[in-house]
């Protein structure tokens, strides 16, 4: 496969500020990133460890989208089920261990057990001509060292979406270590504030420009995002969605899309930013993951063409 979206899968119950509640949405960084790539291209594979219930709950979505399931491995009875609570702005207020109390152990431990090992990922990249890979990851150096060997061997571009809890100032040395093996780094405004211990957005952008990585996707919530490359930053206002239903996964979906466009456009920061925003606007228009990704392609391509041309003519 040309592209890979790897890492955790979640099954989300969404609780929204206006009282809506929706259960069993497909989510988690890897599936959302998969959708962000798949809206543009069918040549993408999802690599994730799940519970056996995944295949039952999402059979319709898997069949409808003709998803290659060879990299989706059932290691436990149940997947990671979580409850996500959103405020009126669509920001996540809280996440807890889900209403599925069949979970056999506490959810954080279970997320750890289902986390993808570098060796498990390696089987799907070795000799497969993978062009780009997305995976949300923490800052554990040993895992990065193993990952670095795989990346060196297989030569793909890597999009690192940092796991939020690890994006803090005291981890800066580990983050710099990991950035050696990263082509594009994705983080949101809250994570950036924690990393640089400031709320000043201009200062954050200045500091992001100093990081040793080719491109940064800096997501600023409803306002949209910045792409940062070679000391310059590019603001991309968010795109108005058709519907405003479920903000879960907008960051992952836009980051997956950014990985794809980074590889396809030779790292054009304008195309990357616009295509990331298009993916987020599509994602928020549905509960959970985009239900039929290929069906969005024509519209997404037309939108991208128009918006990129408009941005570049400014």
């Amino acid at each position: 496969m040309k592209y890979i979206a790897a890492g955790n899968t979640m099954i989300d119950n969404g609780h929204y500020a206006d009282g809506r509640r929706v259960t069993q949405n497909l989510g988690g960084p890897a599936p959302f990133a998969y959708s962000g790539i798949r809206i543009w291209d069918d040549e993408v594979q999802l690599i994730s460890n799940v519970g056996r219930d995944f295949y039952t709950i999402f059979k319709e979505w898997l069949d409808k989208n003709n998803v290659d399931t060879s990299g989706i491995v059932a290691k436990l009875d149940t997947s990671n089920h979580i409850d996500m609570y959103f405020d009126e702005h669509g920001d996540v207020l809280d996440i807890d261990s889900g209403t599925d109390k069949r979970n056999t152990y506490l959810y954080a431990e279970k997320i750890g057990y289902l986390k993808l090992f570098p060796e498990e990922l390696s089987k799907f990249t070795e000799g497969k001509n993978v062009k780009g890979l997305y995976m949300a990851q923490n800052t554990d150096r040993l895992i990065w060292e193993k990952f670095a060997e795989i990346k060196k061997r297989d030569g793909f571009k890597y999009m690192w979406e940092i796991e939020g809890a690890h994006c803090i100032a005291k981890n800066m040395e580990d983050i710099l270590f990991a950035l050696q093996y990263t082509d594009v780094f994705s983080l949101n405004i809250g994570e950036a504030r924690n990393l640089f211990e400031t709320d000043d957005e201009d200062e954050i952008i200045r500091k992001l420009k100093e990081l040793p990585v080719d491109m940064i996707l800096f997501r600023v919530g409803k306002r949209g995002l910045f792409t940062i490359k070679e000391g310059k930053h590019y603001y991309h206002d968010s795109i108005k969605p058709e519907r405003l239903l479920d903000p879960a996964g907008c960051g992952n979906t836009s980051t997956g899309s950014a990985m794809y466009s980074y590889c396809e456009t030779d790292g054009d920061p304008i195309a990357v930013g616009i295509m990331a925003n298009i993916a987020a606007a599509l994602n928020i228009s549905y509960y959970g993951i985009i239900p039929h990704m290929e069906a969005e392609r024509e519209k997404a391509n037309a939108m991208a063409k128009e918006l990129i041309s408009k941005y570049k003519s400014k």
Partner: protein
Amino acid sequence: MKYMACGNIMSDMVEDAHGVRGPLHIGGPAFFALTALRLWTKDCKLVCQAGADYDATYGSWMDLHGLSRESIRVEADHCTVHVLKYNEDGSYGHQSIYGSQNLGYLKTTPEHIEAAASDDTVGFYLAQNQDKVFWKKLEEVKNKKNLKMMWELEVPKPGDNLGDKLQRIKDVIHIADMWSLNSNEASYIFDIPKENDEDIINEIMKLPVEMTLYRVGKRGAYAVTPSTAVFCESIDVTESIDPTGCGNSSTGAAMWAHLEGLDPAMVVVVANLTAGYNVAQVGPIPYISDEIMEDARRRAVEYYKKITGKEFVK
């Protein structure tokens, strides 16, 4: 190696009400089971996934006892460490320094047990929950490698609702050969008051395992087979200092005794003696010399006579 102690290793340290932390104590189910095996045989090894820092903490104990590290897979930066925080009113809570995800990530897999087992391996110890996908894979490994398994029931955790608890045990217990649980767990599973040994043992006898070590706390333990139950009160080797790991170590020792073909009375004597050595200090038995091994065997023969009225004959 003939015997394997498989599963988690984890350390803990106590933090007082003023935030002052005491020394790090090594432990965890697999490690305590290993110390127990090592008390009775040198033909044993640890099978676990560890942090890179395990060498500095567990390494010297392993080397002192001439134990192989061939099945310790280093997969992350840190081993699991829990801080036990004591409040001024005597209550306490615990927190994982590196997070519960790290603990889950380092959990031993059936595939790892398969890779660790050699032609001369007879049995392995594992503390485990009731996840059926995990057990199905474990069954395949057991059959392929012709292994016997001692299952120590993983302690239910807060929020870990086992649902149809007895049925979930019955779904998997036929795969194990030996079982170990304490009176709190048994009371929860069978809905019988924990003081009611006879009724609980009757229920245990109905389950399809060769031998169960039923631990009744300070009172001692029973070795239960489908046709008999032998009680042995707890054994003081020296002073009782810290009971942490007594359940794991007595379980590991019971596995050794059962697989060596010893009768249920000797199985429970060996289990309780091992707990007696374990409780004599904080953390593992510091040094198991040949003299201590010999001393343990001599004491076992004495206690066997005490509870059966017969000379021990293997």
